[in-house]
């Protein structure tokens, strides 16, 4: 099997071989190996968190990760943002016929490694192969189940005036790494996607402060969009402090060159948290002692008015609106 062909997706013998020879080699937990129509899993304690995402990233491989790592981290992170402990993932593959088997294998290996790092099991899956030209190399779809401890109650609606907004680290790395790979802008840099699972970080944050109000991973649309969502759902205002928003030196430089705003670039290993003011310092301290939150910082606060709006308090002490994103960020020269 050098390349994946339509036959590998037709549900017959070749599908069985693909699954056995390639998939099971990397995803080898007892639940998956049962190979049933559904995985049968022990009953979790507490409520369930359930989430899903489709991954269509182009290119498949980028500095700091690939679509497989992304597909695991993204879903683990969405679970974590509900305060859940991620337990199980599903994995659906849509493969364009002609994909080199070695590409698929590298992606599966990355998924397996990310799952190991996050401590989750990929317990059920599906593989479809479509004709060449009917998909862009490989799409991955993961859904995830987590368990939510009884005392945990995280929600985008819970931000209160006076609360503090925290970011777990520098913003924009993933979006910029992809943008540079995608458009052949001929800018070279060491910027890598920040793609990483955040469940460990969230667990330690929750231990430090069980009443964290909101958690959100600022993926597509970036921190600006995520904060606008929170402001809308909680009907509060948010004020950011420009000089405290962590942005990496290279990301900042590339954004200058390309006329981009890092607040609108996607992140895949960062979170935003809204926490009670009294707990903010302790949470930041806990975050900074966790490898996924070394650059954790307070970046703003929740204000009363106007509801649904995000502002930036700029370096000059001025203030500007930080709106939701319209469309993907594109480089500008003007």
């Amino acid at each position: 099997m050098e390349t994946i062909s339509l036959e590998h997706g037709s549900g017959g013998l070749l599908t069985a071989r693909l699954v056995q020879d390639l998939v099971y080699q990397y995803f080898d937990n007892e639940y998956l190996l049962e190979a049933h129509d559904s995985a049968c899993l022990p009953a979790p304690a507490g409520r369930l968190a359930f989430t899903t995402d489709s991954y269509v990233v182009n290119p498949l491989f980028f500095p700091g990760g690939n679509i497989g790592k992304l597909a695991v981290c993204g879903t683990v992170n969405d679970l974590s943002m509900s305060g859940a402990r991620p337990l199980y993932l599903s994995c659906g593959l849509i493969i364009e016929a002609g994909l080199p088997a070695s590409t698929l294998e590298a992606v599966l290996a990355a998924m397996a490694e990310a799952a190991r790092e996050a401590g989750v099991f990929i317990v059920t899956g599906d593989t479809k192969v479509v004709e060449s030209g009917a998909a862009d190399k490989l799409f991955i779809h993961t859904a995830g189940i987590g368990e939510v401890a009884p005392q945990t109650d995280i929600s985008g609606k819970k931000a209160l005036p006076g609360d503090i907004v925290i970011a777990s680290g520098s913003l924009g790395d993933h979006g910029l790494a992809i943008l540079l790979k995608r458009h052949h802008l001929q800018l070279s840099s060491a910027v890598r996607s920040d793609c990483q699972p955040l469940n460990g970080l969230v667990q330690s944050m929750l231990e430090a402060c069980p009443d964290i109000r909101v958690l959100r991973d600022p993926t597509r649309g970036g921190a600006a969009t995520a904060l606008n969502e929170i402001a809308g759902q909680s009907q509060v205002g948010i004020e950011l402090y420009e000089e405290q928003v962590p942005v990496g030196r290279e990301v900042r430089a590339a954004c200058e060159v390309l006329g981009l705003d890092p607040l609108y670039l996607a992140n895949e290993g960062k979170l935003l948290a809204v926490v009670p003011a009294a707990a903010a310092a302790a949470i930041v301290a806990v975050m900074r002692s966790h490898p996924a939150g070394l650059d954790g910082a307070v970046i703003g606060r929740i204000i009363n008015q106007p509801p649904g709006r995000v502002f930036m308090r700029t370096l000059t002490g001025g203030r500007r609106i930080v709106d939701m994103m319209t469309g993907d960020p594109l480089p500008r020269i003007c």
Partner: protein
Amino acid sequence: MCVGIPFKLIERHNEEGIGELDGVQRKLALQLVPGAQVGDYLLVHAGCALQIIDQTAAMETLEAFRAISDEIR
């Protein structure tokens, strides 16, 4: 009207060079700055250097800022 960025010229090969800004590197067209030398800072627009940045003038501008701010201290 035109995003212009100061890149440091770290390599030059005839009319092409490599510029660097905070770890970001980019090939630069140097046709419009014939006198540019490695080590110079260049004002770059759309991948092309439009001018060599004058360090002395820059210092003077910064001095002017300080002078203004001193006025009000």
